[in-house]
């Protein structure tokens, strides 16, 4: 069995959110549960899986600093995908497929780990209380969502860190109903951007103590991009001034691109309207044969934001079955700070 070919198709069919438009799919989620504006999020229930929706993820990115001041970044992601609507199968008959991605980035190295698992048999899943999300031996677990232990490993690296929330959950869009296109494609989307982090990362068998700040995204939906959307550029920014900012641009075949964002100040989230943000790539890097912008100028005039965002390591490319760019960035200009950048759909 050519597992790569097989899963490639599965991912294309099921994970259009990763940026590849796939004709006929992704536009609508026939038979799957639909995202609506009038069903508010409920916690802690919504921390768990929503198997009726086609696609879902638990997504942690963190900016780290070692004791000697070296900047690093880590990523921990668990994807869930339903193979069919109304999947009631248990055990081997379940049609849920899980996928884990882990990344660790230093200024000159980038490590990637990847795991696949079937649902239904316990190899991967999410439990609400006490909270635990796992796939194989990767874990995000704690007594609750505010206090989590995060671990993963891959070729050449592993990490084991503790996340402690110091602020509230943030609902994006309208109370967590986040629109993704002019034609109304939407997802449920909330975050916990207020995590302080401590723990250890191990590279080539050498452990190092790290501290830092982490951002957790939760998102699920059954239809994501509209047909002509090709990928996106997503920024999560931890400003030294204390604000947290999420900025995203969803690129289309025809301009203007759709943009969305959330300005978070003192635990309060304010939605940023489509078109309010100016995204300007400053320079591109050759990453695995692709031209990918690894340095940006972001302008949000309404907040006085005018910053240059630069990748810590331009080669932060996730060479997973379905590849994309994901890595830590540093911020300079009107504001300073650190953050994470995710870019999909660059060929």
């Amino acid at each position, binding site marked *: *069995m*050519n*597992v*790569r*070919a*097989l*899963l*490639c*198709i*599965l991912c294309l*069919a099921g994970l259009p959110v990763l940026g590849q438009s796939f004709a006929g799919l992704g536009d609508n989620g026939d038979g799957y549960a639909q995202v609506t504006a009038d069903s508010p999020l409920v916690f802690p229930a919504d921390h768990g899986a929503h198997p009726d929706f086609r696609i879902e993820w638990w997504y942690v990115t963190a900016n780290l600093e070692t004791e000697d001041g070296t900047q690093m970044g880590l990523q921990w992601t668990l994807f869930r995908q339903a*193979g*069919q609507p109304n999947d009631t*199968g248990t*055990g*081997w*008959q379940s*049609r849920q*497929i899980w996928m884990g991605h882990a990344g660790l980035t230093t200024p000159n190295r980038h490590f990637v780990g990847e795991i*696949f*698992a*079937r649902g239904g*048999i*316990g*190899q991967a899943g999410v439990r609400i209380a006490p909270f635990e999300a*796992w796939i*194989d*031996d990767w874990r995000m677990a704690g007594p609750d969502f505010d206090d989590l232990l995060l671990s993963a*490993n891959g*070729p050449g690296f592993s990490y084991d860190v503790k996340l402690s929330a110091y602020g509230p959950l943030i609902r994006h869009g309208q109370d967590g109903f986040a629109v993704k296109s002019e034609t109304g494609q939407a997802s449920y989307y909330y975050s916990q951007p207020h995590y302080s982090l401590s723990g250890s990362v191990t590279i080539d068998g050498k452990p190092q103590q790290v501290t830092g700040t982490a951002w957790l995204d939760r998102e699920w939906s059954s239809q994501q991009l509209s047909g002509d959307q090709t990928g996106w550029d997503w920024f999560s920014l931890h400003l030294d001034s204390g604000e947290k900012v999420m900025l995203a641009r969803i690129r289309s075949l025809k301009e203007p691109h759709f943009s969305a964002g959330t300005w978070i100040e003192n635990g309060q989230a304010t939605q940023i309207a489509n078109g309010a943000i100016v995204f300007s790539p400053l320079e591109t890097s050759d990453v695995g044969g692709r031209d990918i912008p690894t340095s940006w100028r972001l302008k949000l005039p309404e907040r006085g934001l005018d910053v240059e965002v630069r990748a810590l390591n331009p080669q932060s490319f996730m060479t997973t079955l379905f590849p994309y760019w994901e890595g830590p960035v540093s911020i300079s200009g009107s504001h300073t700070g650190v953050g994470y950048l995710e870019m999909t759909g660059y060929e």
Partner: protein
Amino acid sequence: MRTLLKALISHWRQKPFQLLTLVIGLAVATALWSGVQALNAEARASYDQAASVLGGDGLTRLGAEGRDVALEDYVMLRLSGWKVSPVIEGRLRGPRGSLRIIGIDPITLPVEADMLRLPAGSEDIGAFLSPEGRVFLHPTTVDRLPETFPQHRIDDSLPPGVAIMDISLAERLLEADAVSYLIFAPDQRQDLTPVEVLTDGRVGKLAQETQGDLARLTDSFHLNLTAFGFLSFVVGLFIVHSTIGLAFEQRRAMFRTLRACGTSSRMLVAGLVMELSLIVSISAVAGMVMGYVIAATLLPDVALSLRGLYGAEISGELSLRPSWWALGLGMSFAGALVASVQSLWRAANLPVLAPALPEAWHAAQQASLRRQSALASGLLIGAGLLLIFGSGLAASFAVMGGVLMGAALMLPVVLNKVLSLAASRARAPLARWFWADGRQQLRGLSLALMALLLALSVNIGVGTMVDSFRKTFLGWLDQRLAAELYVTASDDAQGADIARWLTADERVDAILPIWGEDLAYQGWPFTLYGVVDHPTYADNWPILEGLTTPWEKIAGGDHILVSEQLARRFELTTGDTLSLPVPNGAVPLIVAGVYPDYGNPVGAAIVSQARLLRHFPDVAKQRFGLRMAPEDVAGLQAELTQQFALSDSQTIDQAGIKGFSRQVFEKTFAVTIALNALTLTVAGIALLTSLLTLATMRLPQLAPLWAMGITRATLGRIELIRALMLAFLTAILALPLGLAVAWILMQVINVEAFGWKLPIFLFPGQWIALLAMALGTAALAALWPVIKLRRTPAGRLLRIFADER
């Protein structure tokens, strides 16, 4: 060079028949060899495919010997960081044959386990994981599918008899409640807790034997084919050798002239090599084509043999491989070169002005006989030592090779002794000449006679084996198939209904359930049957060795009967204790006896039904044997079929099953018999060409006798009788050699290859037939030269007296 070649080739234009003989010899040699190679290559390719799917990818398998792996253990290993991938495997027995179901989890399957190649982007990929599922199988396996089966796709790269599908579908089809085994990915983290520790020893590394055994197991069969192919090749080369020798003899004068005209001996040899290459090219291609036809014709039978003997599946279609062409043509050229080396050497060293002395045959023969005798003795002693101290299949075949080659080399030595003894006893001058000249002819004929000896003795050996096997097998079948009617229910519930219905029927004397569970003993698959206590078994079931009342012991519950294969493999004898693997442990049982189970590629064992049900309550309860009066069988069969809506294949009477078994048996040996006959034919051709060559070379030796007043007719008769006499002596000598071959085949090789021993039966009728055939072949081969001699005009004989040869 061109002129030279033209001169050389002009010879063949004058002697088209000789050219034909040469081409036939080479083509036949190439044909059988390459045919066999094509068969082997096809089978090996199938094994490789099978191996890569069925465990030959070199990846470790984890599991529990004889038991499944609990799902919880699999998940626990994954959660502990081990990269393992589950497989649910089993057999689905359908009316049209058994299907090996392999359910994989493509999500976790290591990339290295290349079990199924799907074209990227095909909709099959999504369908594979869909609830409906999609099955992939080899084209020849399609007709074995049950009537209702998920959609399938054809994939030539899969081994026949196997259906690959998603693990979820396999779970449903096989009603499995656990995982059969785990595939262990090659890259694992180093710091993990050992699997055995994690699972408390429930899961461990599986012996690869059950999986990768196929190639080793079938080695004997292929070695057998190769041996036949090589034998034919060698025999074919005898033809080439004698024809080239003949052409050399006839062109001796031409060579002298060419040399006298200033052709260097190097040029002459180069010319001959070029000429030979030309002929070899044509013959080899013809031979390859014939070889392909032979292989294509035999392949279905080979496929059947392999399935019948080893359960090995190979596809019934032959594909042409470039390596096969290269190898076949290469062998052909190399063979032709070897066969012509002597003639080329003589051409190179040809004296331009030869003294007309008689050939110094006597001294040369003595020396070569001494050499051969020493070599033969060495080979025979070596074979003897290997027989005593060696073990394994390769050693067995080496013994066979040593005996055959040693005996063949010894043949001229023995014949020479016999002939000189006869010559010294003979009083009449012609009789004396008859024997003495036979000795001289040995030089030219010994190769052909050796070929005949090999072909005959292998024929006797294989014939004895096949017929002994047939006799044993059919006798065994008669005993073993004691029940008059066999019924297979569609499921357990129907099985119970049928049993109830039959119990009420007064025509049925006894209902004997045939329930078996597929297990593994130390990694080797076997089926455990449970039998009820009934005199049928004691009266009919053949036993090789055992306690006095094995069936009573079995009924007692703490004894077990094992098949010969199982017994030999694990060196079990009566009275030993066998640790029967059962769920959650093992039960010690005493071996009550060993019974023959010919033709079964896997092991088998019998316990009481009570014991079987105690450990395996879920065993399929679908098959029954019925004891009843033979005249009631047809009626009951019809009623059963009607009552329970059974298909034709679900009830089968004794005669039917015997007929089927016989047919499988005959097919199994069809290839051996066909190759046997072909080899004998080639030996006949070799004898014919050798005699023809000799006939031409013998004219100078016969002419003086004619000059002294012996008619050509008389000379012809003597020549014919002498050829027959030599063939007869060879055939007589082939008999003990053939029996030795049979003994090695049945008592040594069979045990190594199949796991059972056969009693040897002698078939003198067969020997007489072969003797007649040998004499017939010799007569046919000698007749032509004799007729040619009788028709030789006096002028040609006279020229011998005048010409300088």
